[in-house]
């Protein structure tokens, strides 16, 4: 059910995504993440079109961390920030981070290879039902995504919504 992808550019870093529905302890999880007890990024899956979006954000976060150019304080918060089309940090957390009442959560962990125990420990903290990460597309709030990323219908004639979203994420620092 987990989706694991090694970052080709940074072979020491692997990204694992885990999707949970019917989550009952979102507020508690969020607090744990803030306190550093959960070493992962908690993302609102309704703002995701596809898990690829998370990979793009995570890759960029690791890159910026290595060159010392992160805009936020931690790798996990940087992943959330990178998902947003704007450079406003609090806005990014509001839209893309988990909020207290959320019923679904995408948990993203950047780790070394073969750390199944670490992943299990983190997942165990979620009180919810884990579903395949691919199911995220069932949760996507496409209308909201289109509005936030300002994707006009004509853009989707030459590419997918995912491409439109990813492009803005990749380029936002020079717009």
């Amino acid at each position, binding site marked *: 059910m987990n989706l694991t*992808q090694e*970052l*080709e*550019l*940074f072979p*020491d870093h692997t990204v694992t995504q885990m999707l949970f529905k019917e989550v009952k302890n979102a507020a508690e999880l969020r607090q744990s993440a803030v306190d*550093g007890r959960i*070493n992962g990024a908690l993302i609102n899956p309704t703002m995701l079109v596809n898990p*690829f979006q998370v*990979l*793009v954000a995570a*890759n*960029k976060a690791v*890159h910026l*961390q*290595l*060159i*010392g150019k*992160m805009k936020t*304080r*931690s*790798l996990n918060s940087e992943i959330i920030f990178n998902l947003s089309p704007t450079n406003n940090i609090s806005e990014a957390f509001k839209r893309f981070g988990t909020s207290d009442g959320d019923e679904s959560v995408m948990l993203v962990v*950047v*780790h*070394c*290879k073969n*750390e199944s125990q*670490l992943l299990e420990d983190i997942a165990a903290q979620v009180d919810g039902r884990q579903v395949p990460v691919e199911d995220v597309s069932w949760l996507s709030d496409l209308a909201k995504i289109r509005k936030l990323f300002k994707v*006009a219908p*004509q*853009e989707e*004639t*030459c*590419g997918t919504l995912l*491409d*439109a979203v*990813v*492009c*803005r994420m*990749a*380029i936002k620092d*020079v*717009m």
Partner: protein
Amino acid sequence: MTPDHLVALLCPPLHNPRRRRGGNMAPEKSATVPQFLRGAELVKQGAEARVYRTQFLGRPTIVKERFSKRYRHVALDEKLTRRRTVQEVRSILRCRRAGIPAPAVYFVDYTSHCIFLEEILRSSTVRDHIASTQQSASCTVQELDRDQDRELVQEQELEQLAQQVGQILAKMHDEDVIHGDLTTSNMLLRRSPEDRGSDLVLIDFGLSYISALPEDKGVDLYVLEKAFLSTHPHTEALFQKLLKSYSASSKKSSAVLKKLDEVRLRGRKRSMVG
């Protein structure tokens, strides 16, 4: 928590003894990308960039790596390389917003001047397409009627292509994107999955910029005209078709085409003393 601290936490030496300590991370800079590219397939060594084909986040990806030119003053080189990387991704987004196909951008590394782009699958350059169509047409000149029919079909196909190019450039100019390096090598013809027709994709926006001036658009077409006619001999009529289609598709074409005429004349009228 500092980034270094976090990396150390994520990957404690206990789990992976070969892992360097967090404190050693800083000097690593972004040599990671060039290092990664050494294992990628080099598809083109251009005048100012190398183009690689690779997998990135599990997807087929093209990486364009701008390298520094030693003949340029360091300050100028750094400025140009950075500016062109930025201009390239900005123009791509602007085109895509307007529904003009251009490869999606996945990642940009401004320290090593690398752009990671969607690989346009099932595509060939317009340059190769015209060349191969012309070649197969000329082979058949002295053959049977059937082949002459084929030649006619090929001619119509090229005209249709020229029309498509005219349309897409009109749309691009109406968005005030000046490509800056229009050639038939910088346009890809992408076949649709079920082989039902094909669409054009614009690439290589390194010399692009935003301008509403008819002069800049006229020069853009002038650059294409010269590249087109020098790359594909005996295509004057085909290029006229392209301009006609541009003119029909763009809202502001008359001022642009007037400028194109002016720029052409400037070439011939220049005093050339000395």
